[in-house]
């Protein structure tokens, strides 16, 4: 048990966090670029932003002298992500009202 606790409290190496975050980011980016449903794209973007937040918090925890700066920035980033999604959903709603679809490929009156 003591061992378990020690393991749990022993720091997961920074690389661990970074790798997980990078994978999350990649999945999010991949999804955001290939998915056609606007709402799903937003979800993917959220995934990307949260991957970044994870990276940030990990850095903040590991960097000597970073203090609470990293965590503080995370809160700001969350707020910004919320704002992005709020505006995004409003626009998607406007699109849906006129076209009854949120599929990006079907929204194509602008071309050239």
């Amino acid at each position, binding site marked *: 048990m003591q061992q378990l606790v020690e393991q*749990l*409290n022993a720091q997961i190496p920074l690389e661990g966090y970074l790798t997980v975050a990078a994978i999350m980011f990649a999945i999010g980016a991949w999804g955001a670029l290939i998915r056609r449903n606007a709402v799903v794209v937003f979800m993917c973007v959220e995934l990307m932003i949260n991957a970044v937040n994870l990276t940030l918090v990990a850095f903040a925890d590991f960097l000597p002298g970073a203090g609470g700066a990293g965590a503080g920035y995370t*809160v700001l980033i969350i*707020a910004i992500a919320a704002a992005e999604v709020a505006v995004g959903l409003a626009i998607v*709603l406007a699109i849906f009202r006129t076209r009854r679809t949120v599929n990006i490929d079907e929204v194509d009156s602008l071309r050239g």
Partner: protein
Amino acid sequence: MTLGLLQQEIGYGVLYLYVGAFILLVVGFVASVLVLARLIAPSRPSETKRRVYETAETSVTDPWRPFPVRYYVFALLFLIFDVEAAFLYPWAVVYRELGVYGFVEMVVFVLILGAGLAYAWKKGALRWV
């Protein structure tokens, strides 16, 4: 007191493990209750039972269609104030150390949000029609 001290000693990594474990425990428990009920309870399905209940009338519309937009407005407002809280709580915790500067800063911050609320109010976004 001993247990509290203990938790400080063992650190937060374990505490969050507890949270996760507890949530799993609850979910597992509830799920097993459902399974148990399924095993015990009788099951005699019929077409009528499978219909949707709508005060003695057959349902004519499918509820899976777009929601009225007003829900969305409230969701947005909630989002704004919820995120605001994320800023206010850290501020609140260390408020004693901040002094006048912290007070003024918070007043400005909250007033700007208040302006948002006033705007929404005046625009009728808070009216449930």
